[in-house]
């Protein structure tokens, strides 16, 4: 892993900052001349003030995953800060922080060493300074609670008394990290940084930004993907009180595809600029407009899925181990099944929005985004700007789940602000959000297995056909992306294995959805394994354990090995805590699935009841998680529960469909989400170890889906091979 917060880069970049004193080799002489310094910035991430407060910078976008708390906790731990005397500031987007994005459950993985190093360097400087002041050897000193202590006498000095001398210490490149056994902050359940502001309603989300003279805007979008504007009647929108301007936003007039090669910069439509968001919404509704949808595919779900089914027989092999055909001929039994997974929308609670103030060739942006770099790149290309002409603020974000990886709600806001020379807040309606999402692709999976006379799996074939998010909206002949790859489970566990992908081109915008491909692929894989267990009348967990084989490192591809030791451990533990072997009343059943994701191992058991009339109640979920060191147990538990609920909810009702090239669903009434009365008791157990922390945002989600479907089979004998489950159980 590259240490991106290069110290020299930081010094160069931050020496222009006013007020704070930047400490480092190059600046030491200038530091000495400055008598009245009250703030000592040891790095872009850590500042200590002479009033004793430590200010830590939270560098990544906070979308509800708790990273604004977790990363500063690591810094505070290593430097020996007092969490009650720490202030946390959200970083703007800035090249000096690099890797400033939210996705793939990567934040802790990518920043663990970076945060520890930044914290440990400051601890080193403070201890060196204390050693001079206290005339004691450094190896007898420790830092804790914003003080440096002498381990033997207990004498101590506060950080603020050490700053001047600490500032002169050259921070070492190699620095020892604190032993895990000494952790005081990491591993302690810690409330979110913004929790007080959230409950008081004073947190500013992107949608809450307010600037002097700000205009409010929305865009009446062509509902058909990639459709254009034929004509519109400006007066129809201007008849609404508060509507100020009506402007055509045709993507091709503004750079086409600058943000992503496979996507327009924004959805074509007519912008309504007004004095309130509501006037803009109403103006958009009243606008009389004719769309131009000539030459488009005009997708329909049924026809699209037919294309997926057809593509099952025209595929590219993504991985081939041994010979599945030979295994099939040798097998005592062959079995196959087809599974179907729907398209899904993200629906974060905060609808898409972006506020831009474009003035004097300077573009200032407040945007709830998981991917600020993409937005900066787009703005640079769209307006021929240099990075120093763009400032992107990263307000707290009301959910992302992958939707905010795409920046198609930012470019049009910038176009409007530039046009009017005033700040513009562009807000999407919920209908816009659901109808112009980057959907999780639907897919069809053909699963085939060969068993020997002992029931052991000797051959495995998984064929996946769908439109790939990697070639979303693509008709330009670019190579097909895949939604299954050579690492997909159970690669490495079966001697004869073939993973194949059938690619279908589509006009539907497709993107990352929490857990990405695993959100779809876990369902067929782990339900199919459950089918095999029941077929042979073997307990599904016992069958899965036998399938995995002995505890060992399993070579999968190249250097990548699957740690079957840790995997078996979470499986055995979930079997125990879920009372798996205790019989249930008639009509109830338990289902199991386990996955590895983002370096973490998760095993889940779902317990359900299927009533005689087909009514489904999810009674309980047990999860065992091994994610290595748990930085913030409160946030970690929340991520696991949230991921499981999202999986269950998607399995129960999640489905987006298309008719005549547009999305059918439009709001929470026809794209429902789980409510409190349907939420089961979710019990999460973490394995305690000192291994490096791994991701948690995504991994809990995928196993919840097959575990639920498997529980339904155990309860009533109905095998779910198509999602969503909604309606399938009713008599």
């Amino acid at each position: 892993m590259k240490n991106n917060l290069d110290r020299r880069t930081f010094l160069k970049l931050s020496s222009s900052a006013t007020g704070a004193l930047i400490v480092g080799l190059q600046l030491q002489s200038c530091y000495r001349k400055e008598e009245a310094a009250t703030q000592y910035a040891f790095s872009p991430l850590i500042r200590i003030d002479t009033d004793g407060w430590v200010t830590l910078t939270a560098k990544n976008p906070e979308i509800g995953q708790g990273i604004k708390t977790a990363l500063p906790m690591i810094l505070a731990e290593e430097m020996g800060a007092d969490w009650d005397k720490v202030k946390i500031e959200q970083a703007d987007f800035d090249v000096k922080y690099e890797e400033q994005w939210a996705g793939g459950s990567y934040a802790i993985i990518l920043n663990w060493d970076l945060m520890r190093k930044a914290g440990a360097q400051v601890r080193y400087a403070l201890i060196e300074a204390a050693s001079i002041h206290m005339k004691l050897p450094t190896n007898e000193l420790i830092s804790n609670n914003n003080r440096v202590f002498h381990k033997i006498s207990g004498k101590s000095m506060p950080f603020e008394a050490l700053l001047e001398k600490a500032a002169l210490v050259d921070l070492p490149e190699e620095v020892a990290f604190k032993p895990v056994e000494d952790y005081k902050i990491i591993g302690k359940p810690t409330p979110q940084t913004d929790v007080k502001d959230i409950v008081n309603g004073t947190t500013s989300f992107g949608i809450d930004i307010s600037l002097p003279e700000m205009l409010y805007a929305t865009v009446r979008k062509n509902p058909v993907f990639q459709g254009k504007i034929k004509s519109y009647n400006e007066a129809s929108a201007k008849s609404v009180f508060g509507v100020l301007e009506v402007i055509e936003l045709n993507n091709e007039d503004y750079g086409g595809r600058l943000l992503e090669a496979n996507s327009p910069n924004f959805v074509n439509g007519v912008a309504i600029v007004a004095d309130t968001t509501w006037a803009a919404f109403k103006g958009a509704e009243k606008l009389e407009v004719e769309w131009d949808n000539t030459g488009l595919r005009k997708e329909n779900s049924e026809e699209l899925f037919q294309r997926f089914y057809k593509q099952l027989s025209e595929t590219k092999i993504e991985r081939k181990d041994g010979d599945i055909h030979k295994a099939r001929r040798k097998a005592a039994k062959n079995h196959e099944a087809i599974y179907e997974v729907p398209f899904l929308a993200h629906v974060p609670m905060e609808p898409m929005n972006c506020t831009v103030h474009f003035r004097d060739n300077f573009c200032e942006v407040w945007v709830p985004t998981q991917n600020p770099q993409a937005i900066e790149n787009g703005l640079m290309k769209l307006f021929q700007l240099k990075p120093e002409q763009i400032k992107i603020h990263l307000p707290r974000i009301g959910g992302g789940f992958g939707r905010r990886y795409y920046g198609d709600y930012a470019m049009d806001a910038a176009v409007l602000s530039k046009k009017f020379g005033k700040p513009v807040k562009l807000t999407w309606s919920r209908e816009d959000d659901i109808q112009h999402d980057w959907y999780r692709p639907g897919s069809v999976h053909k699963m085939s297995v060969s068993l020997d006379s002992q029931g052991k799996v000797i051959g495995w074939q998984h064929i996946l056909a769908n439109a790939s998010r990697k070639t979303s909206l693509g008709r330009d002949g670019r190579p097909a992306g895949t939604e299954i790859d050579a690492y997909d489970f159970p690669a490495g566990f079966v001697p004869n294995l073939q993973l194949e992908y059938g690619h279908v081109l589509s006009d539907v915008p497709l993107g990352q959805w929490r857990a990405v491909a695993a959100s779809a692929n876990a369902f067929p894989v782990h339900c199919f394994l459950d089918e095999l267990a029941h077929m042979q009348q073997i307990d599904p967990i016992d069958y899965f354990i036998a399938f995995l084989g002995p505890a060992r490192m399993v070579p999968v591809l190249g250097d990548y090995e699957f740690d079957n030791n840790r995997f078996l451990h979470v499986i055995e533990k979930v079997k125990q805590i879920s009372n798996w072997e205790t019989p249930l009343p008639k009509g109830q059943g338990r289902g199991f699935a386990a996955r590895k994701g983002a370096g973490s191992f998760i095993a889940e058991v779902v317990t359900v009841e299927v009533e005689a009339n087909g009514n489904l109640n999810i009674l309980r979920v047990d999860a065992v998680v091994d994610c290595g060191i748990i930085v913030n147990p409160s946030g970690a538990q929340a991520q696991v529960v949230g991921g499981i609920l999202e999986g269950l909810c998607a399995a129960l009702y999640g489905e987006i469909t298309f008719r005549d090239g547009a999305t059918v669903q439009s709001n929470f009434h026809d794209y429902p989400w789980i409510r409190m009365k349907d939420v089961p008791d979710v019990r999460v157990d973490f394995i305690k170890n000192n291994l490096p922390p791994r991701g948690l945002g995504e991994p809990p989600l995928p196993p919840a889906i097959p575990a639920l479907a498997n529980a339904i089979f155990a309860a009533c004998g109905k095998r779910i091979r198509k999602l969503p489950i909604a309606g399938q159980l009713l008599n």
Partner: protein
Amino acid sequence: MPSYKLTINSESISVEASPDIPLLWVIRDMLGLTGTKYGCGKGVCGACTVHFNGSPIKSCTMAIENADGGAITTIEGLVKEKEIMIKEAWIQLDVPQCGYCQAGQIMNAAALLVNNPNPSNVEIDNTMSSNLCRCGTYSRIKQAISLAAKNIKQ
């Protein structure tokens, strides 16, 4: 432009607005109280919940002309002792994830606890099921309501 009188967080004000503008947008865009959130615009997600004459309503579906003369409390005005105890329970249990729906959740919970200081789990479920949380903080919300009820009683 017609003028409407409102009491908002104990302060009397008058606003000039189009009769059909929903209270939500008066609160957010005209009065600058952004703690109340837009989520669906159809009264189905609960993010915009405020108290109107003491009862929880979805402010995105109440036009200003129907709110004339009413007393409104938003999350920013939820400052009575018992209400603060609810917020404290939320903090103690670290309820929010993204946090966007939480103002609406707290407003609904506060109204529930005024009318029913000792709600059962089923009563909490039924009342709170009008509020959507996309991150899945429901079980902590439920625990926070029970904790607040317990603390208020003492």
